[in-house]
């Protein structure tokens, strides 16, 4: 009886943790950081410098599908 109760409680605990992890999992497609435009200084051939503004939209898209899965080395 004790074994049955302990097994049932453990399985419920497992299901609860799985549900919690699935619930708190970051949704794919939602960017985690706000896109911020950047600026770089580009030097031309004649030595003149130009300021180039890079738009942040689309450049910092995150791939959240495997965010919680560590990537194996090698």
């Amino acid at each position: 009886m004790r074994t049955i109760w302990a097994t049932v409680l453990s399985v419920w605990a497992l299901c609860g943790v799985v549900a919690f992890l699935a619930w708190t999992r970051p949704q794919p497609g939602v960017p985690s950081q706000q896109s911020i435009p950047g600026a770089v200084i580009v030097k031309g051939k004649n030595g003149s410098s130009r300021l180039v503004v890079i738009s942040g939209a689309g450049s910092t898209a995150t791939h959240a599908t495997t965010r919680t899965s560590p990537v194996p080395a090698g």
Partner: protein
Amino acid sequence: MLFATGMPVAWLIARAAGLVAFGLLTSSIVLGLLMSTRLLAPRRQKSLLGWHQTLLWLAICMAALHGGALLLDPVMHFGVGAVLVPGLAPWRPITVASGVTAGYLMLALATSFHVRRRITQRRWRQLHYASFGAFGLALGHGLHAGTDLQGVAGLVFAGIALAPVVWLTFVRILTPGRPTPPVPRPKAPSNVEPTRRVRGREPVVAGRG
């Protein structure tokens, strides 16, 4: 629903089973320390011993599920050898090896309950000290290899698990052990040579093969 949304089911089960296995191992160790320190009433010792063993076996089952789910995870690419042999894992081999070793120690401890009569009480007790090693290895594995116990969450989790184990261990060390009640033995006849008690061995009973 989970499969339809592309949820990494194996990865979620592996993480959850690892966390539950560590919780069960910690509970089993706390119960063992409660029995060892005799803080509870003696009439509860037998019930606690049963729960102690059951929780340990369940922890082993959850650890097996943890390893089995990792085999099915398409991202980790863990093979059977990586799950069963310490040090063969392609990802963080040392921390994964600590988890595998903790699993083997848990298995040895759980098996020792069933061969307790074959090995002496002293050796069984010495073997039982390996539970601290299993706990430490499992905690280190969870903190360094687990993705859910990074940062503050890991510290809180480790504190909750460590606090009762450390406190009960100190109680066990500092509290002098109660003398065990003497077992009444039948009075030996005067013509029989009294049994000799060799240190570290079971008493040799005269007249038994």
